[in-house]
């Protein structure tokens, strides 16, 4: 792992086995609540009116940011789907890293637009089904 980008130094590394829970819906964000996927895969799982809506994240993805910036408890459950290596930051560390890496800022923003797109599509499906 000696080719990792230098901006990861603002966070610390976490190695997890497959099917490890990172956090659950309703949890308070911890001390280092923002994660970057170095290797492996994680699944974000939104429980919306009883049904589960998954979003799979691959290397270079960022998650855990929404609740910090929107100042709320965790909105979804997150677990690994295979052996996974993550980096985690507090908000200051993340913003410092994003300030020196256009790629990280871009990846974080793209992950958020995908989350919002999936939620919008779910909302559209429910409206079409007459639920909203």
């Amino acid at each position, binding site marked *: 792992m000696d080719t990792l980008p230098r901006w990861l130094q603002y966070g610390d590394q976490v190695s997890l086995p497959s099917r490890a829970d990172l956090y659950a819906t309703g949890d308070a964000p911890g001390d280092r609540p923002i994660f970057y996927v170095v290797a492996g895969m994680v699944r974000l799982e939104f429980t919306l009116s009883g049904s589960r809506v998954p979003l799979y994240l691959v290397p270079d993805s960022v998650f855990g940011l929404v609740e910090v910036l929107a100042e709320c408890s965790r909105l979804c459950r997150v677990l690994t789907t295979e052996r996974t290596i993550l980096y985690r930051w507090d908000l200051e560390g993340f913003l410092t890293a994003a300030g020196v890496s256009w790629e990280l800022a871009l990846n974080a*923003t793209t992950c958020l637009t995908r989350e919002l797109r999936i939620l919008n599509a779910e909302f559209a499906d429910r409206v079409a089904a007459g639920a*909203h």
Partner: protein
Amino acid sequence: MDAYDDIMKLAFQAEEAIDASVVEKFGKRFRDKQVIIREGDIQQKIFWVLEGEVYVTQRMGDRYKVLATLGKGEIIGEMSFFDKSVRSATVIAKGDVHVLEFSRENFADIYAASPQWTRRLLVSLSKRIRGMVEKLS
């Protein structure tokens, strides 16, 4: 001063201190109910709301449903930029609206140069995600 200089000036200005020359160059006004972004289009413009509010709507069958109402300081049209997709929503002016209109290239320059714009965009998206989860839960 060329367009790139104007963009860099904007990137590092505080929201409340946007230069009049920048507003003159990039500003655009929309009237009540005027369409700013149309669902299905491949237009690449990005807008920053200076004054007024907009409805973000999506066509569902034969009607439009309001997904969100966004106002001053919000960025609109960014999802197609980052997700490389066609417009997924129609954005309509709610009353008179004044925006700054950026091309894809101008916005990329601002975004790459200015951490405050990165944070502004991340906060905006996070709040919209929170709002949608709450609406769906």
